[in-house]
């Protein structure tokens, strides 16, 4: 009897050829899979709740216990977009889009040549330059706020979207230089040499040889810069007013001025987060590399 039970597990750990195989414990493996699912669901519940509440009426949104199966309505979205409330989030959404897109474009224009000079044809002491860029990202924004504010006041740039564009460019440039450098470093030098021996000019080399390799890198860099600009609150809140305010600033003002309407708040939070959610889901794999400044591949 005991010999029969002993045979079971041994047979299970061997392939038919008798090769030893890593021991597997299917039951505990399945349990851990279930645990992973539970934790994943737990983390996403607040977001699901936000989305569900945004489609409920204000009465159904403010019940205790929560009414999960209340009828769905677009009431929250209607009041957020100003139907019957006079609120108008469009200028702030447009400002956010302008600031994020334009600053991302300028970042790329500055970062790509810089990354070229730090990887493909490196300047001397290029690591020092690279770490200088990174160190500027680590200095807290709040410490430079006052001079920037005073400068904006004197030069009339207060409440001007271009001021934010310049600041967001500076904020994201170090990240972009690091990321682009790590991508350009993957360009095989032999191809470049071959291209230059064939008599191809620098621009042609860049376009035909370098671009196809680094375009995915440019996409990843743009994604990260876009997300960071879109999310920024402190600078936008301090340096903009009614004209140039961005979506995050609109969100903070929206609650204090309108009182609390839960469905409307959830609709607002969801609308403002939507571009980042879409961009982030679309490029999940690029996210890690960007967040770790290209240090983690």
């Amino acid at each position, binding site marked *: 009897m005991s010999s029969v039970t002993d045979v079971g597990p041994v047979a299970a750990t061997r392939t038919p050829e008798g090769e*030893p195989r890593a*021991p597997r414990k299917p039951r505990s493996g399945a349990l*851990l899979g279930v645990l*992973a699912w539970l934790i*994943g*669901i737990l*983390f996403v519940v*607040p*977001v699901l*709740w*936000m989305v569900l509440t945004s489609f409920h009426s204000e009465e159904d*949104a*403010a*019940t*205790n*216990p*929560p009414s999960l199966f209340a009828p769905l309505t677009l009431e929250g979205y209607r009041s957020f977009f100003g139907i019957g409330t006079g609120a108008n989030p469009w200028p702030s959404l447009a400002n956010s889009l302008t600031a994020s897109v334009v600053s991302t474009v300028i970042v790329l224009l500055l970062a790509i040549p*810089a990354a070229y*000079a730090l990887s*493909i044809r*490196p*300047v*001397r002491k290029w*690591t020092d*330059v690279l770490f200088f*860029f*990174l160190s*500027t990202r*680590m*200095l807290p924004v709040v*410490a*430079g*706020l*006052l001079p*920037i*504010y*005073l400068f904006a006041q004197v030069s009339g740039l207060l409440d001007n979207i271009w001021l934010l564009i310049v600041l967001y*460019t*500076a904020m994201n*440039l170090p990240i972009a230089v690091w990321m682009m450098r790590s991508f350009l470093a993957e360009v095989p*030098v032999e191809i470049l*040499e071959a291209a*230059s021996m064939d008599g191809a000019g620098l621009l042609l080399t860049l376009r035909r040889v370098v671009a196809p390799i680094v375009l995915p890198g440019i996409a990843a860099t743009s994604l990260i810069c876009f997300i960071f600009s879109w*999310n920024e609150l*402190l600078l936008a809140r301090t340096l903009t007013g009614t004209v140039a305010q961005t979506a*995050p600033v609109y969100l*903070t003002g929206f609650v204090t001025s309108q009182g609390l309407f*839960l469905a409307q*708040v*959830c609709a607002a*939070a969801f609308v403002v*987060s939507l571009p*980042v*959610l879409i961009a982030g*889901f679309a490029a*999940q794999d690029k996210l*890690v590399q960007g*967040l*770790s400044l290209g240090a*983690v591949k």
Partner: protein
Amino acid sequence: MSTTIERRRDDVGSPPPPPPSGALRRTSDWARRAPLLPALLFTILVTQLPFVVTLVVSFMDWNAYYPDERGFTGFSNYASVLTDVNMREAILTTVVLTVVVVLVSLLLGMGIALLLDRQFRGRGVVRTLMITPFLVVPVAAALLWKHALFNPEYGLLNGTLTAIWRLFGSEDAPQPDWITAAPLVSVEVALIWQWTPFMMLILLAGLQSRPLDVIEAARIDGASTWQVFRYMTFPHLRRYLELGALLGSIYIVQNFDAVFTITSGGLGTANLPYVIYQTFYQAHDYGRASAAGVVVVIGTIVIATLALRTVSTLFQEENAR
């Protein structure tokens, strides 16, 4: 002689050649530097210049309401920053907030990364679910936690408590006012929810870069799961843990959105960025706000130096390959 120099200069990609002498070298060096200069000048102009001004203003007596009394006062702003009870509390709050959020999200992130490193049905879906909190705009996330989850009357937390108690036929479920009862913990919970995915992503990337054949060999030699983790996975993960901790610290030391939105800096949750914002925005005491800014910078430099060292080790390993 000149031909060798020319050949070397064409040798793109390899480390810069030992410098030849004279004007030729200077031209070549500047040709290499040129693409770098716009980005470098821009960064110095926009990020370094303001800090110099902050440093100067921090030694000045300058309040926007008393513009005539502007002048240099030496270290008095620093004395008032460091002796001010609010400011000292803010320094302590910043340290506690940063340490708690980083450590907890790092531990949770590691646990979840280990779970996600295994094969199971729907692994990709769970990974996507896990990333979601990080993709919610920080202000929106703070609003969500404050109004939809923590609210004592109709928040999801108390609503769930009521539902569970009703399930057992009881009508008097506990209904704590979360933010008032534990303001700092409320801010921390909201931040941990957002930062655990960040840690998980970095650690998962670390786990997946492990040399699997070595681990397989260890397993065959009879190493237990714990032994593999303790002696192989963990040492490999250490760099990634450090990287996650330090990058996380840099972002969380500077956190403004959550404190501003969830508690408006009240109930002992005001951290340094919030206090500086307040000093500058409400009190218009420019000298003191600048001195506080310099204190934050010094604190950050300590963390940043460690961070740079870690990144630089990873960086050298990558380049050594």
